[in-house]
């Protein structure tokens, strides 16, 4: 198979295993390209991509923009804070106005879950979801899976733990879908207030003991405490959270094995992870950032490739 089954990448839930494998395989070739002396290919030279960020982003936005530039696409950048959205324009009107300028692909981040899906049903351009509220962040899950595969090989049967604020994390949900589809064994660990009810239905284990979870897993993907999405108190204090659920050197030294540490960023240093762990040789946090560009290049390339096949 050399084509995606979908015209959009809205979430991992809607991708099949072949799609995921194809993206990861294609990303390998793009990783080679971004490490060459000339890090650019002319593949998307006649494609225009609009990056619509209705929510703050550093890593994802830069990563997408760099991926687009490496593929020679034309780019329009939009952020809601300096746009007519502030004057009351609807999402659909904003996007339709941009599409009137002959844009082929929309990369969108939005604070409302389902925003990317809503658009995909109403416009003709390809949609890539760069995060929609607490719903999904598919390209983050794909780059996480790619980084894990790079480090520990095929994920089938591998034990992966996702630790932290599962409740508010789109990364967690996309990761669960992606890892389960690739055959991994997934455990979630965090305070009971930050683990959604009935999430076991997705085929994951639940634990509230971080030491046991670390002993069990081969990879620990540590999530940020999303204080900006929390309007009630889910735990007594950040200090207490760090004490019970934070990754620190002492915790890792107690293990009788080495594990891979991941974090999607941005890091609250000293809360979910200490600096000496985040910057240690077990951490692949910066590899994740590098792989993000390759994976996003693969996603955009394959979507445009799909359009050609359908025409």
């Amino acid at each position, binding site marked *: 198979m*050399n*084509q995606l089954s979908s015209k959009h990448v809205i979430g991992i839930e809607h991708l099949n295993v072949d799609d995921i494998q194809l993206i990861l*395989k*294609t990303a390998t*070739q793009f990783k080679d390209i971004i490490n*060459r*002396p000339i890090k650019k290919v*002319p593949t998307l030279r006649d494609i225009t991509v609009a990056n619509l960020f209705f929510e703050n982003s550093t890593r994802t936005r830069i990563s997408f923009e760099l991926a687009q530039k490496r593929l020679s696409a034309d780019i329009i950048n939009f952020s809601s804070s300096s746009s007519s959205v502030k004057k009351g324009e609807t999402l659909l009107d904003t996007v339709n106005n941009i599409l009137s300028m002959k844009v082929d692909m929309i990369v969108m981040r939005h604070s409302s879950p389902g925003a990317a899906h809503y658009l995909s049903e109403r416009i003709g351009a390809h949609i890539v979801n760069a995060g929609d509220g607490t719903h999904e962040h598919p390209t983050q899950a794909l780059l996480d899976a790619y980084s894990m595969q790079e480090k520990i090989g095929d994920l089938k049967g591998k034990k992966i733990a996702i630790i932290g604020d599962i409740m508010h994390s789109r990364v967690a949900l996309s990761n669960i879908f992606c890892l389960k589809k690739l055959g991994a064994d997934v455990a979630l660990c965090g305070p009971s207030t930050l683990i959604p009810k009935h999430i076991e239905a997705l085929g994951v284990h639940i634990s509230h003991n971080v030491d046991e979870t670390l002993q069990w897993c081969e990879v620990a993907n540590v999530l940020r405490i999303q204080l900006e999405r929390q309007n009630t108190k889910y735990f007594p204090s950040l200090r207490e959270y760090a004490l019970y659920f934070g990754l620190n050197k002492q915790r890792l030294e107690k293990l009788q094995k080495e594990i891979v540490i991941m974090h999607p960023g941005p890091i609250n240093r000293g809360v979910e992870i200490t600096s000496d762990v985040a910057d240690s040789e077990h951490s692949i946090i910066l590899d994740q950032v590098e792989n993000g560009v390759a994976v996003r290049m693969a996603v955009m390339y394959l979507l*445009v*490739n799909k359009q050609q096949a359908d025409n």
Partner: protein
Amino acid sequence: MSDTILLNGKQIQLTIERLSREVIESINFQNTVIIGVQPRGVLLAEKIHQKILELTKIDIPFGKIDTTFHRDDFRRGKSLNAKVTEIDFLIEEKNVLLMDDVLFTGRTIRAALDALLSFGRPHKIELLVLIDRRFNRELPIQPDFMGDVVDTIEKVDVEVQWAEKDGEDRVVFIKAKE
């Protein structure tokens, strides 16, 4: 028309031997690298690289290049899966001997040249092909070394088949699909 064999396994071996000797006669071994074009040019390049090693005991640096992301028919032709590019040496100021199985329109070689220049500026690039379909060129690209020339109508496919991939070494005309 039905499939016709243009070269059989024995003839291909002889052609590979001749091409290898031609290369040995004309290249500067100190400064030459061999690069096969993915996917099927790599198989030819491996055989010629091996034959040169047998004949001279000199192991020329060998690489593979994929043209997928540099093609000019993206979104126009059939969709392709990218293959591995492996060039673990510098090509800056080197003589690159680029190898492919069939030279048809010249567009794949154009893409390969584009992809190669991402790795640096070679001193010279020469092209070796097993089969040259000389009347179907769409770009001004010609081989420096060629195994055989065929004159065919555009609808006919010329395919180089290899034992390790297709069960037998042979070059065939594939009949046109009506």
